[in-house]
């Protein structure tokens, strides 16, 4: 098991290096010089040159890259151009907000998603099934920014039940959590339902019934664990992608999290900030994948064996 984990981590390193390299090059290819963006259009070229030199932007790309990686390995992702603060510190300040939002969204989404999926599977093709699956389909199909805007308009602007934006009270967290979680809940519910319906066709379900288990016992005791295997993987992946910044949700509701940082970084050509957030989220996604993989191992004895 331990060697498997180490192997997986080892495989992740090239991925990480590749992502850093790609973002590094892309940011330098896109039009828009960070110094010009910062200072405005009509500034003395000599000043621009001087500042560029101070920031090390005049050096060849490969030197810049090596320096960046060397510093990053020590936990230093540079200083934000715009905020003039250490990027690592900025990310660590914003991360708790994203964590709160993600955990809240995930908890609600998974609870609702799994329960709705199970109920829908049991009530297959009946009213509750149609109702839940309709809701799930909406969650899956509606773009997050639209869900967020509609929720904001109806419940914050019109009904005034929740604040329009911000993230300083629990009321303020409700709408962003729903906007972010609905989509996840939808896919979890659909997957739980279809897996459960499929698992219930298996021979071992008939064995469980023949043993004398009541229908609920059959579903909870025998079908659910089998049906949840792929769902758990999906949950781990969802959480890691939520944590790595719900860019749209955070933007719409003004949540000061990782996603907002990335958007700010793009808008202001703040290369260190953007690079920092991308590297950080890459690490989160890789971790999420790793956890999903390990969970699968724990849950499915057949895969555990093959390890």
């Amino acid at each position, binding site marked *: 098991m331990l060697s498997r984990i180490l192997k997986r981590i080892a495989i992740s390193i090239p991925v990480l290096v590749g992502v850093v390299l790609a973002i590094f090059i892309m940011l330098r290819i896109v039009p828009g010089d960070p110094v010009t963006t910062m200072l405005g259009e009509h500034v003395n070229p000599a000043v621009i040159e001087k500042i560029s030199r101070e920031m090390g932007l005049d050096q060849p790309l490969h030197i810049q890259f090596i320096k960046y990686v060397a510093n990053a390995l020590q936990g230093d992702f540079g200083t934000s151009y715009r905020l003039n603060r250490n990027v690592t510190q900025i990310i660590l300040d914003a991360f708790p907000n994203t964590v709160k939002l993600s955990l809240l969204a995930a908890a609600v989404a998974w609870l609702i998603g799994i329960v709705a999926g199970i109920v829908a599977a049991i009530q297959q093709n009946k009213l509750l099934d149609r109702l839940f699956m309709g809701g799930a389909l909406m969650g899956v199909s509606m773009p997050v920014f639209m869900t967020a805007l509609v929720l904001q308009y109806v419940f914050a602007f019109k009904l005034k039940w929740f604040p329009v934006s911000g993230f300083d009270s629990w009321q303020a967290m409700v709408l962003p959590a729903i906007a972010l979680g609905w989509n996840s809940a939808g896919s979890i519910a659909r997957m739980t339902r279809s897996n459960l319906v499929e698992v219930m066709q*298996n*021979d*071992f379900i*008939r*064995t*469980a*019934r*023949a*043993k*004398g*288990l*009541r*229908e609920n016992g059959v579903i909870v*005791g*025998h079908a659910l*664990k*089998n049906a949840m*295997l792929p769902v758990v993987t999906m949950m781990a992946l969802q959480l890691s992608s939520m944590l790595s910044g719900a860019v749209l949700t955070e933007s719409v509701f003004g949540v000061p999290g990782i996603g907002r940082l990335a958007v700010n970084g793009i808008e202001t050509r703040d290369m260190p900030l953007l690079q920092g957030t991308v590297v950080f989220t890459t690490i989160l996604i890789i971790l999420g994948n790793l956890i999903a993989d390990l969970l699968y191992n724990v*849950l*499915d*004895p*057949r895969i555990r*064996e093959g390890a």
Partner: protein
Amino acid sequence: MGETMILDIKNLQSHFFTAKGEVPAVDGVSIQVPQGKIIGIVGESGCGKSMTAMSVMGLLRYPGRVVGGSIALAGRDITHLTPKELSLVRGNEISMIFQEPMTSLNPVYPVGKQVREAILLHQKLSKTEAKERVIDIFRAVGIPEPEKRYYSYPHQLSGGLRQRVMIGMAMVCHPKVMIADEPTTALDVTIEAQILQLMKKLCKEQGTSIILITHNMGVVAEVCDYVYVMYAGKVMEQAETFALFDHPSHPYTQGLLKSIPKLDEKAERLYTIEGVVPNLLHLPKGCSFCTRCDQAQERCFVQKPCLYEAADGHGVRCFQYESGGQLDE
């Protein structure tokens, strides 16, 4: 037969309600199971033998349903039990093992736990006591290293071992009747003999009656006391095993027995019963076997034969034995 019947199935009818129409999968089947005996049900695929078993276990799922007849277990009618009552009977008084040992066990739980569950459902034992019982039954069904195997997952066991686990699960609560639906079809011939002997032995020791469903006449000859031959949802012939093999009376049974290749006869081609099992949606008006019968007469095509008594305890659904008197209505 003057013995007490532990299981008495009378005129059982189970139909499937499909988009194309009502399919009479089990069409008036009566089967008597005396205590401690092994009853065989034979027939081709789709003749209704598995459906009869599923009906008895209350395992028929939508769109299938028992529409008539009665099933009495030790004198108690179990045809129309509530789910709760049914769960107390299943696995406890009547149990079942299935054709596919590969898929009949839950892949994500250790096999010992799955057997223990059957005990905990029906008996007031602690988990530790139940575990000991599981290890005992594993030993009884010939699973080597039962303490270790308790924690094995199904995929770590061979097909033969898995079927032994299934038999253990079915026998652990000392049921009155165990239904074995083609228990050896998926196994090697050498394992098949072991499993059959095991079932025979357990049946003797515990006084459990067995309904053995098979399409293999050899298996019937080896273990069964009494045989029912089914065709298109009906019992065509029923007799003690010896009598059936000695005087196969129904043309269908005769065909089945003739289809077994013999080593001492040189034949250019193996014998087959011509034609196929009729579509249950469009059964012939008369005898359901008439279209394939080499002895069919005119009335066979227009009139349904009853089960006639050809000899003592030997029933045949064929007009040739009409003089023996009716056994069913």
